[in-house]
C-alpha cells in the first residue's frame, strides 16, 4: 500500500502545479481532490475507496459546473455516486483510427476498465487488445505533465503568448501555417480544422503512419467516392483477402472480426462463409482462412488481376487484360474465382495492397461480382483513414525549402514513422516554429519548439464519425490528471476563440446533427441520450447506385510494369520484404504500454519486439534458426533483427512488423525491437510497405525471442479438435469420427452436491480467431502483472488467459489452430488434493478457487495441472524496482481493479472465472430481488471478444446459453480422458474443405 501513499503524494504534487484558478473545472477538482487525505492505516482497497470517494464527489458536484460537465452514467444512473460502486460512461476509443464505441468503467472516479459499447451498431460490445490497453496509457508516467517551450517546462499562458505572437506575424506576412495531423475522425474537430484552414496561409495535411492512400485514390478513381469502402463481411459468403489482415489490424479489425464471425457461426445455421487468403506473411487473418496461399508481395497485383480476368471470362466480357502470371499457382486462383463466382452478389474481395492499380482491379472485381452496395458499401464510406501521402511528401519538400513558417504536429510522429525520418527531421529544423501536441516527448516532439500536451482521450470531449453517418461521442471519464489541454482547445485558443471545445462540440451537434434527427424534441434531450448511449446513427439516405468507372486496362498495364520491374530486380539471394502492422503494437503509438508489449503475437507468440519472419526452407538455406540476428539490407535502409522461423511464410518474402524500435516512447517501450519504417519505400511520394531485392545476412549475434510458446505441434494429441464443414454436416458428431459425443469418464467417487449455480464456460473454436483481445482484457480486469522480456524468455509470463496456437500439416503450408486456454475449473481438479494447506479448493458453485492468503507456494498444484494454467508469483512484481511497469509506478497503479487483490510474492494464481464479477452479478440480482439471469454475468474475456466465441453461464440452468452450447455435437473438453471434468468446454473448429 506504500505505492498508494506515494501515489497520493504525487497527486498532491500534481495539484500544486495544477491549473490556474480561472479554469474553474480543474480548480473545482483540485479543491475537491485536496479534501481526501490518506487514511491512517490504509489497506489498498479501503484506501482507493477514500481516494475515489471525494474524486467521485467531485465528479458529482462538477456535473453542474466546471470542466467535467454533466456526464451521463451509462445504464444505471445513480442519484449519487457511491464509493465502491462502479460507474459506466459511454465514450469513443482513441486507440487507433477505427473509432470504436466504448463503455468506460470508472471506479471511485478512476477509469479502470474499458469495454465495448454494445449499442454501437458497428462495433458492438467488444474491443481489440489495443483498445483494452488504452486505459493504461492514461496512467502513463511518461506523459507530459505540463507544456514545454524549447524543452523547458512553461506555463500555458507563456506558451500561448509566444505561439500567438508568432502566428500574428505569420498571418501578417502571409506565411504558411500547416497543421499536420493524424486522420481526424471527429466531425466537430474536422469543422474546427475547416475554420482553421479558412484562414489565409493556413493548411491541414493528414498523415497516417500506415497509409491507405492507394485504396483511397483507387476508390476515388473507380467510384468517385472520397473515402474508403465500408466492407460488410457479415454479408459475404465468399471472402478473398489479398494481404489484408482484416481480423487483426486492417482498417477496422473489431468490426470486421465481428462480421466475419457472424458469417461463420454455426450455432443456429449450418452454413458458413468461405474464406481464401493470399498473403506473404502469416497473418492472424490468414490463420483463419479455409485456404491460405502464400504469395510474394510483388504478386498481389497478379492475384487481383488473375481473379478479375477469371471472373470476367465467366461473365464473358471482351478485352480481358491478361498478364502472364508466371510464378502464380493457377489452381488456387481458379478455385478462388469459382467460389467467388458461385456466390456472386455475396462475394467480397479485399486487398491491403499499397498500389492504386491493384486496388482498382479489386474494385473492378467486386463490381463484376455485384458486390457494390451489398458487401462493399460506398454510400456510407469509411472515413477511418484519410491520410494523403502525396500531400505529406509535398509538405516535407516545402518545409525543406523553408516555405513553411509554422508546423503544428497533432497526433502523429513522423520523425519516427516517416520512411525517411532524417529528411523529415532536417525539414522540420527549417521551420521557424514547430508545435507538437503530443502527450509525451516523442521523437517529433523532441524537435518541436513548443509542446502543448493533449489530453488522453479518456480525459477529453470529442466525437467521431468512423463511417459516414455513424456518429459517436467521447466524454471525459476523469478530470485531467496533468496540466494538459485538449488539442482542440489549443487550436481554438490560437484561433483567438474561447478555448472551450465542449461548447464548440455541443454547438456543432446542435447545429448540424440535431436537425437531422426527429426522435427527440429538444436538443438537450437529444444530447443527453446521445451522450448516454455514446452513439448516434443517421438513417441511411437513398443514394445513387455507384458504378465502377475505373480504367482496368491502365491498371492492368501498371501491374504488368510493376511485374517486369520486380522480375528484373529479382536475383537469387534477394528476397522481398513485407512490412505489416503487429496486432499488439500497430503503428507504434502505444509502444510504452507494457500490456501491449507483453501481448504475444497471435501467430508467432513472440512478445517484446519484432523479428524477421522467414520460411523454414529459407531458414535452413541460410542456416539460421529462431533467435539468430540477421541484417536486412535494402540498399537504402538496413536493420538488424532476430529471425523467427515462421511456418507458412512465403519463401520469397521476409515479413517484419512495424511499430517497434521507438527511441523516445518512454521507459517501457524505448528501444524495444527495431524500427522497420526505415524499409518503407517511397514511390512518387506514395508509401509502399513492401520491396524487392532485399539481402539478408547473418550477424552472428543471437537475441533469443521472448516467445510464450516454443513448441508448435500437437504431437498427435487431440487437443484442438477440427473437422470440415462437409464432414460435420454428414455426421452429426464429426468432431469425433466413428464415436458418439464424448461419454463422461466414470468417476471413482460420488458426485458432490452442487450449490445454487454451476458456473461454466463454453468456447467456440470456430468463432475464435485468436485476436488475443481477451488476454489483455483479463490482464486489465484481474491485475495481472507484466514481467518483462527476460522473464518471458524464462517462461514466466503471468497471463491468466493465453491463446495456444498449433500448426498442423506441412511446414510450408501448415494449418493453424488457436485455442484460448485458461483454468478449466475441473470438478475433479488435480491441483486441489495436492495442496497441503487447502489453498485451492472447489466452491459449491463449481469454481476452482485459489486462496492467495493461504497459499505458501509449494507449486505442487502447478506441477499437477495438466493444462499448466497456474501462474506463480516468482517475485514481488508490484513492489520490485526491476519490474518497473505499471504496477510499480504510482500512477500506473491507478488502473488496478480494487475488487481484485494484488498478489504477493510466492503465491500461486490463476483464472478465477472473474469471481469478482460473479459476486457482483449475484449481489445486483439480490439487490433487485430477482434471480441471476443468463447473461447478467460476463467474464472479462467474454465481454471483450469481438467474435463472441466465449460464453459464460450457469450449467445448472438447462436453458442458459452455455448449457445450450454444451449440448452441441461439436462440444468436447480438453484432456477429458484424464477424468478432470472441466467446467470449461470447447466447440470443435470447422473449416470449409
Amino acid at each position, binding site marked *: 500500500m506504500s505505492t498508494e501513499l506515494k501515489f497520493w503524494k504525487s497527486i498532491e504534487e500534481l495539484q500544486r502545479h495544477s491549473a490556474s484558478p480561472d479554469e474553474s473545472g480543474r480548480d473545482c477538482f483540485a479543491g475537491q481532490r485536496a479534501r481526501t487525505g490518506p487514511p491512517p492505516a490504509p489497506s489498498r482497497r*479501503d484506501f482507493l475507496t477514500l481516494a475515489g470517494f471525494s474524486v467521485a464527489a467531485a465528479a458529482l458536484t462538477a456535473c453542474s459546473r466546471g470542466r467535467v460537465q454533466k456526464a451521463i452514467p451509462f445504464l444505471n444512473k445513480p442519484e449519487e455516486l457511491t464509493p465502491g460502486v462502479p460507474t459506466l460512461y459511454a465514450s469513443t476509443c482513441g486507440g487507433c483510427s477505427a473509432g470504436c464505441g466504448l463503455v468506460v468503467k470508472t471506479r471511485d472516479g478512476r477509469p479502470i476498465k474499458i469495454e465495448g459499447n454494445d449499442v454501437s451498431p458497428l462495433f458492438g460490445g467488444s474491443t481489440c487488445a489495443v483498445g483494452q490497453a488504452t486505459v493504461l496509457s492514461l496512467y502513463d508516467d511518461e506523459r507530459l505533465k505540463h507544456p514545454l517551450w524549447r524543452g523547458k517546462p512553461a506555463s500555458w499562458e507563456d506558451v500561448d503568448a509566444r505561439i500567438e505572437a508568432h502566428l500574428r506575424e505569420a498571418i501578417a506576412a502571409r506565411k504558411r501555417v500547416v497543421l499536420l495531423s493524424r486522420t481526424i475522425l471527429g466531425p466537430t474537430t474536422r469543422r474546427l480544422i475547416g475554420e482553421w484552414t479558412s484562414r489565409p496561409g493556413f493548411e491541414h495535411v493528414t498523415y497516417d503512419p500506415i497509409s491507405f492512400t492507394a485504396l483511397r485514390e483507387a476508390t476515388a478513381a473507380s467510384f468517385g467516392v472520397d473515402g474508403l469502402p465500408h466492407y460488410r463481411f457479415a454479408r459475404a459468403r465468399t471472402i478473398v483477402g489479398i494481404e489484408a489482415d482484416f481480423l487483426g489490424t486492417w482498417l477496422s479489425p473489431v468490426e470486421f472480426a465481428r462480421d466475419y464471425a457472424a458469417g461463420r457461426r454455426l450455432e443456429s445455421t449450418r452454413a458458413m462463409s468461405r474464406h481464401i487468403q493470399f498473403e506473404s506473411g502469416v497473418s492472424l487473418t490468414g490463420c483463419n482462412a479455409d485456404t491460405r496461399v502464400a504469395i510474394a508481395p510483388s504478386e498481389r497485383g497478379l492475384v487481383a488481376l488473375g481473379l478479375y480476368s477469371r471472373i470476367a471470362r465467366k461473365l464473358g466480357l471482351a478485352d480481358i487484360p491478361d498478364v502472364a502470371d508466371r510464378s502464380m499457382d493457377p489452381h488456387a486462383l481458379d478455385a478462388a474465382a469459382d467460389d467467388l463466382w458461385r456466390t456472386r452478389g455475396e462475394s467480397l474481395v479485399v486487398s491491403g495492397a499499397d498500389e492504386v492499380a491493384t486496388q482498382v482491379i479489386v474494385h473492378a472485381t467486386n463490381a463484376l461480382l455485384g458486390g457494390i452496395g451489398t458487401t462493399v458499401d460506398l454510400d456510407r464510406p469509411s472515413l477511418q483513414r484519410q491520410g494523403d501521402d502525396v500531400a505529406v511528401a509535398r509538405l516535407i519538400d516545402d518545409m525543406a525549402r523553408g516555405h513553411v513558417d509554422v508546423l503544428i504536429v497533432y497526433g502523429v510522429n513522423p520523425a519516427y514513422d516517416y520512411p525517411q525520418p532524417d529528411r523529415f527531421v532536417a525539414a522540420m529544423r527549417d521551420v521557424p516554429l514547430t508545435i507538437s501536441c503530443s502527450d509525451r516527448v516523442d521523437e517529433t516532439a523532441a524537435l518541436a519548439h513548443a509542446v502543448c500536451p493533449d489530453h488522453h482521450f479518456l480525459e477529453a470531449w470529442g466525437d467521431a464519425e468512423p463511417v459516414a453517418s455513424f456518429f459517436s461521442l467521447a466524454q471525459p471519464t476523469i478530470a485531467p490528471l496533468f496540466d494538459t489541454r485538449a488539442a482542440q482547445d489549443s487550436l481554438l485558443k490560437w484561433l483567438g476563440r474561447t478555448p472551450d471545445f465542449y461548447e464548440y462540440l455541443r454547438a456543432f451537434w446542435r447545429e448540424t446533427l440535431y436537425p437531422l434527427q426527429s426522435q427527440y424534441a429538444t436538443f438537450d434531450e437529444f444530447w443527453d441520450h446521445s451522450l448516454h448511449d455514446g452513439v448516434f446513427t443517421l438513417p441511411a439516405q437513398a443514394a445513387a447506385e455507384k458504378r465502377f468507372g475505373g480504367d482496368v486496362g491502365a491498371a492492368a498495364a501498371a501491374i504488368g510494369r510493376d511485374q517486369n520491374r520486380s522480375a528484373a530486380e529479382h536475383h537469387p539471394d534477394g528476397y522481398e520484404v513485407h512490412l505489416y502492422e503487429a496486432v499488439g503494437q500497430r503503428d507504434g503509438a502505444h509502444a510504452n504500454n507494457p500490456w501491449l508489449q507483453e501481448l504475444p503475437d497471435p501467430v508467432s507468440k513472440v512478445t517484446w519486439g519484432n523479428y524477421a519472419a522467414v520460411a523454414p526452407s529459407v531458414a535452413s538455406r541460410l542456416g539460421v534458426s529462431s533467435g539468430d540476428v540477421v541484417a536486412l539490407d535494402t540498399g537504402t535502409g538496413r536493420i538488424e533483427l532476430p529471425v523467427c522461423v515462421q511456418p507458412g511464410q512465403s519463401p520469397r518474402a521476409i515479413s517484419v512488423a512495424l511499430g517497434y524500435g521507438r527511441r523516445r516512447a518512454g521507459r517501457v517501450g524505448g528501444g524495444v525491437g527495431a524500427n522497420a519504417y526505415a524499409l518503407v519505400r517511397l514511390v512518387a511520394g506514395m508509401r509502399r510497405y513492401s520491396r524487392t531485392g532485399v539481402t539478408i545476412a547473418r550477424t552472428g549475434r543471437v537475441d533469443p525471442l521472448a516467445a510464450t510458446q516454443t513448441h508448435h505441434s500437437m504431437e498427435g494429441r487431440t487437443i484442438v479438435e477440427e473437422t470440415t464443414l462437409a464432414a460435420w454436416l454428414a455426421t452429426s458428431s464429426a468432431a469425433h469420427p466413428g464415436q458418439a459425443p464424448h461419454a463422461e469418464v466414470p468417476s471413482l467417487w460420488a458426485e458432490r452436491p452442487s450449490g445454487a449455480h454451476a458456473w461454466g464456460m463454453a468456447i467456440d473454436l470456430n468463432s475464435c480467431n485468436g485476436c488475443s483481445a481477451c488476454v489483455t482484457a483479463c490482464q486489465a480486469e484481474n491485475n495481472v502483472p507484466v514481467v518483462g522480456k527476460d522473464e518471458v524468455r524464462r517462461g514466466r509470463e503471468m497471463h491468466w488467459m493465453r491463446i495456444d496456437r498449433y500448426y498442423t500439416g506441412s511446414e510450408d503450408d501448415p494449418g493453424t489452430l488457436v485455442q484460448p486456454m485458461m483454468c478449466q475449473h475441473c470438478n475433479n481438479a488435480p491441483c486441489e488434493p495436492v495442496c497441503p494447506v487447502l489453498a485451492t479448493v472447489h466452491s*459449491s458453485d463449481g469454481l476452482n478457487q485459489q486462496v*492467495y*492468503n493461504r497459499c505458501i507456494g509449494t507449486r505442487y498444484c502447478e506441477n499437477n495441472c495438466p493444462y499448466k494454467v497456474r501462474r506463480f508469483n516468482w517475485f514481488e512484481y508490484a513492489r520490485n524496482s526491476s519490474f518497473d511497469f505499471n504496477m510499480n509506478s504510482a500512477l500506473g497503479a491507478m488502473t488496478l481493479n480494487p475488487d481484485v487483490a494484488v498478489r504477493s510474492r510466492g503465491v500461486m494464481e490463476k483464472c478465477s472465472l472473474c469471481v469478482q464479477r460473479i*459476486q457482483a452479478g449475484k*449481489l445486483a440480482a439480490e*439487490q433487485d430481488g*430477482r434471480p441471476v439471469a443468463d447473461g447478467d454475468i460476463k467474464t472479462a474475456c467474454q465481454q471483450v471478444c469481438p467474435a463472441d466465441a466465449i460464453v459464460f453461464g450457469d450449467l445448472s440452468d438447462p436453458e442458459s446459453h452455455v448449457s445450450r452450447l454444451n449440448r452441441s455435437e461439436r462440444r468436447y473438453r480438453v484432456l477429458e480422458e484424464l477424468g478432470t471434468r472441466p467446467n470449461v468446454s470447447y466447440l470443435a473448429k470447422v473449416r470449409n474443405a
Partner: protein
Amino acid sequence: MRARVVFIVLALVFGVAASGAVAYQLSRVGVHQGYAPEQPIAFSHKLHAGDFQVPCLYCHFGARTSRHAGIPPLNVCMNCHSLLTAQTIEIEKLKEAVQRQQPIAWTKVHNLPDFVYFNHSQHVIGGVNCSACHGAVETMARVRQEMPLTMGWCLDCHRQRGPGLALARRAAGSHEGPNAPYPGLDCGKCHY
C-alpha cells in the same frame, strides 16, 4: 531422588503452561478487538445514534448500496449542524474544517486485512444488523472494535445464520436453490 522427580514434573507443568500462553498470544496477532482510537473530533455515536436515534444509514449511506459503508462527507454533517444552534468545541472544529475546506482525517476503527473482500451491502441486504459486527455503537461515546473480526468469527455467523437466513430468504421468495450454502462458506466469497 523423589525431590528430583517432583522438580521435573513441576518443570514440565510450567513448560506446558508457558507454551500454552505463548500460543494464545500468537493466535491474537492481528486481532484488534477492543481497539478504540481517539478521533480528531470527539464525535459521539452515543449522542447521535443513541440519544438522537439518527439511523446508521443516514450517515453511512454507502452500506446499503456499496461495499463500503463510507465515512460521511462534511456536508452530510452540516445537513443538520447548519440548522442546529448547539455549540461545542467539537462542533466548532467541524465548522472550522468546513470553512477551511480541510479534510478531517478520521482514524479507521474496523480494519480487515487486504486480502479479504467484505461487502457491506451484501450483509445489509442479507438482513444482518450493523450491531452484529459493530456492537452497540449507539452506546459508545468513542467507537471501539467490539468483535474480534477474525475469520473464525465471520464463519461462526455464516455457519449459524446460514440455515435460518436461507429459510427467511426462501419465505421471502428468494431464488437461491434449496441446497444453496447460504450465506456460504466458499473461500471465494471473500478471498479473491
